[in-house]
């Protein structure tokens, strides 16, 4: 039995220690990351009251199946990302530890204001992480938008606090019907807008291209899988558990998320660089997952969260590695790269195909569930649009894969002589990552219960939980 507080406290403690013992910072990082993975797997459903104040007055941490599921994914991808890109950690151990603590805190907290605090800590460490590649314009953009988003969110919960007088999530959910409609609209809009910045919903996500598009192997993996998971899971918690939407507001929010995944995929279609393609694809996926959450399909959305986190972890790490070692991530210049690094190519391809949702990969399983469940709630346009966006997504991933595997000019036989001169270094770690995650994706596509177990537990408890 592990106290969920430790998931936040240990990385935070180690972060302070790593400032004091500069020499041992990497060791501390590894220890904390390993501990968190272990703890996430051992975590049982529980609720912890912090500081002796009982909720709804004090702050509590909630470890239900939902957050445990999120924590397992979050900590696993974080650990994989750190280990496979260990050479890029350099001086960022402290920041990584702080961000790990904050992300875990976001997943665990049962208090809206505490969520804001962790969100801020996570954002600040993200700003620092995004400077890894010395592209400060993107970071600047991110800081402004992130600050705006956090403040909008804060404004939203202030409004609610002044009317309902509580910040506890469960308490809020039970009292929300007391709130005047107009006030609730105002508050929800601000909360939505604030979270949309972090969850990458259009048009709140102007920072994504600058940050994701310039990520290196480490920050790419952490942003696209760990941060994205935490942000979208919290989005899901707020808009499925606490505030249940219906009517016009739901339609408007759904329109925003649907537009996000369509426009995101179209934007990705027009990109030439791998990382910016992946960045827009992340936007699209965030929109897709948010759509599923808003439609009330938490289970499917969680499955897609897992799928997306695993796939993007591999793809972004490899794309970042391409940038770090080959100096470019332009597809044309990297033709045939996977011929040199077959195992990495294998992982990348499996991840891409799973993300697109082709059969025998896990993504297909998710897609079938998503579409069937959408049909069950009598929604016929969203499935068609999901398929449309997934068509575009497929086209640009296939284009990318075809070029990365098969060098050659258009109209000539594919031959080795066209293969790029560039190559990757440190391939062992990336290859291990690619193969492990690739095989894992294949494994869960044959044995989907491995992941869905937790989700179905959560869904069966949903009436009693929260």
């Amino acid at each position: 039995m592990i106290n969920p507080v430790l998931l936040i406290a240990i990385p935070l403690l180690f972060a302070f220690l790593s400032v004091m013992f500069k020499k041992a910072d990497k060791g501390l990082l590894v220890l904390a990351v390993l501990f968190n993975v272990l703890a996430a797997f051992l975590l049982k459903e529980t609720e912890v009251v912090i500081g002796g104040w009982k909720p709804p007055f004090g702050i509590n941490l909630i470890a239900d199946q939902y957050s445990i599921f999120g924590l397992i994914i979050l900590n696993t991808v974080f650990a994989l990302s750190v280990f496979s890109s260990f050479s890029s950690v350099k001086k960022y151990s402290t920041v990584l530890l702080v961000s790990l603590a904050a992300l875990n805190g976001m997943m665990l907290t049962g208090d809206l204001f505490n969520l804001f605090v962790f969100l801020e800590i996570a954002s600040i460490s993200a700003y620092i992480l995004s400077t890894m590649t010395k592209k400060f314009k993107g970071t600047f953009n991110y800081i402004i938008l992130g600050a705006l988003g956090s403040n909008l969110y804060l404004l939203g919960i202030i409004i609610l606090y002044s009317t309902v007088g509580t910040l506890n999530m469960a308490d809020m959910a039970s009292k929300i019907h007391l709130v005047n409609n107009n006030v609730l609209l105002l508050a929800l809009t601000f909360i939505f807008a604030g979270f949309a910045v972090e969850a990458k919903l259009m048009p709140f996500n102007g920072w994504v291209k600058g940050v994701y598009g310039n990520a290196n192997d480490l920050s790419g993996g952490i942003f696209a899988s760990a941060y994205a998971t935490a942000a979208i899971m919290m989005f899901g918690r707020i808009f499925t558990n606490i505030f249940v939407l219906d009517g016009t507001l739901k339609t408007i929010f759904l329109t925003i998320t649907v537009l996000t995944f369509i426009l995101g995929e179209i934007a990705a279609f027009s990109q030439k660089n791998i990382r910016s393609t992946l960045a827009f694809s992340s936007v699209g996926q965030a929109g897709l997952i948010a759509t599923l959450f808003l439609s009330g399909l938490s289970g499917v959305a969680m499955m897609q969260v897992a799928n997306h986190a695993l796939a993007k972890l591999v793809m972004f790490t490899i794309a970042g590695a391409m940038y770090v070692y080959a100096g470019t991530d332009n597809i044309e210049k990297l033709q045939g790269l996977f011929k040199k690094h077959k195992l990495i190519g294998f992982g990348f391809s499996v991840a891409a195909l799973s993300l697109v949702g082709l059969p025998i990969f896990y993504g297909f399983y998710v897609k079938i569930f998503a579409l069937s469940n959408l049909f069950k709630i009598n929604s016929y346009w969203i499935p068609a649009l999901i398929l449309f966006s997934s068509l575009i997504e497929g086209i640009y991933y296939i284009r990318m894969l075809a070029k990365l595997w098969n060098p050659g000019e258009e109209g000539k036989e594919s031959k080795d002589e066209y293969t790029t001169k560039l190559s990757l270094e440190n391939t062992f770690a990336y290859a291990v990552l690619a193969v492990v995650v690739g095989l894992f994706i294949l494994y869960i596509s044959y044995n989907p219960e491995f992941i869905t177990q937790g989700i179905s537990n959560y869904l069966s408890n949903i009436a009693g939980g929260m």
Partner: protein
Amino acid sequence: MVLVYSMVSFFNPYWMEKVIHPAAYNLFYLLSLGGTLGVFYSKDFLTLFIFWELVVWSSMFIIPLGKSRRATVVYYGISTIGSFAMLYALLLLNVKYGTFEISTVINKLSTDPKMATLFFFLIVMAGLTKLGIFPFYTWLPIAHGNAPHTFSPVLSGGLVKMGGFIAFLITAVLPTSKVFANHLQILNNPYENYILMILGAISIIIGTLMAIKQDDAKKLIAYSTVSNSGYILIGLAMVDQTAFAGGVMHVFNHAMASAAMFLAFAAIAYRTGTTKISELGGLIKRMPVTFTVYLIAIISLAGIPPMSGFASKWLIYQGLLRKGNMFIAFAAFFGSVGSFMYVFRPLAGAFLGQLSPKHKDIKEVPFWMQLPMLIISGLTILYGVYPGLMLKYIAKIQTSLNLPAIGVDGTKILTPNGMWDSWTVTLVFTIGFIIATILYFVLPKAKSVDLMDTYTSAEFIHNPDLYHYSSNYYAPFERLYKNHPSVEKFYDAIALRFKELGLLVKTWFFNENPAFTVFWISIVITAIFMWGDKI
């Protein structure tokens, strides 16, 4: 299930010809083979779809090994349009009827004509995209023409025919003529089927005209596939006694013929390294076996007795004429005439005529490459002389679908309009062939002229290819429709628009200046306040 099995048996002999070329694509080749078989054996729609997509993505990794990376993207894009339409329909059906099983779903659909119309079109999309019917034919020339030489026959002979299977499922297994009986009828066909027939007719015409233009033999065969898919679709969409049998039989015949043609050109490319007709010529002397195989294949493809292609085309014409579909019949006859033109071009250009000096030393391909080609040719002749062998199968299929079965009596095919005895015709042709051979040996021989044996006023010939008579072979004819509208351009335009929209999204919403995003955030928040008043 019997019908599914019998369908498979049509394809199996075709798959046997795996040509020896050690390449990394074996894995995907086998995956796509397994997937194709899976499609035909699957009992429920979900399994069918999974195998279907398995084939798509495994073949998708093979195509870029050839000449073009773009081909894969086009192939994937178009076939996914179809398969996603199908997936949409299948899942909707599943939610509505609670099952994926083909027979149950079809039964329930039969009592619900309104739904059936919707699903008919959605599912048939998958078939159309795979068959390469207008307006989805664009992937065929680019993918077939650029795929590795040994994979082109698989694409054309096998994967394309999966589309035929879907069209078969949706037009025949779902008894369209009964389900849509109360719908608008055009020339005795429900309008749903008639639309398919029109699309088939357009494909025949486009495929034929485009095939005549091609200089690359593989692209030419690919366009001929488009036109023959049109025949198959017309036959299947008729769902009657004769044309339907012809359509099903044509699935097999065309698979054989196009596989043989592609293999012949794979053999040529193996020796010469090119498939451009104008760079070849006179290969009959060097590669006689390949020539024979190609000859038999094109005779079948053009629908000349005694090869099997005649029987199936004849049955389709019978069906068309009986129902009085003049327009469709016109397209079918046009395609038949045109097919003489386009199949003759590689024959004359690559095999007959003068040998190009750079190909003086080539030899026939090794025996293991000849064998599959010979097997296919043998089957073509066999089913041409005894079409009854296959029509018996088809009659079984028709009985299981409650259609009037095609009448077969030994080598005779009986239809309401008349009968056809392939044995007599074969006999006549054989006698004609013997007479021609005798004449060839008896009459004085023509002098064979070398390509370089020409009068050039002492000019040196820099590029002998230009002197080859097959360059610009049908130039006068092509000029007739030079400025044709093209679906390819339309698709390219769509892709370009998407790209532009993407860039627009990027500059508007993902600008480096954060003020843009702040602006959008305020706009959206205002919008939510204005319209989101009810919760």
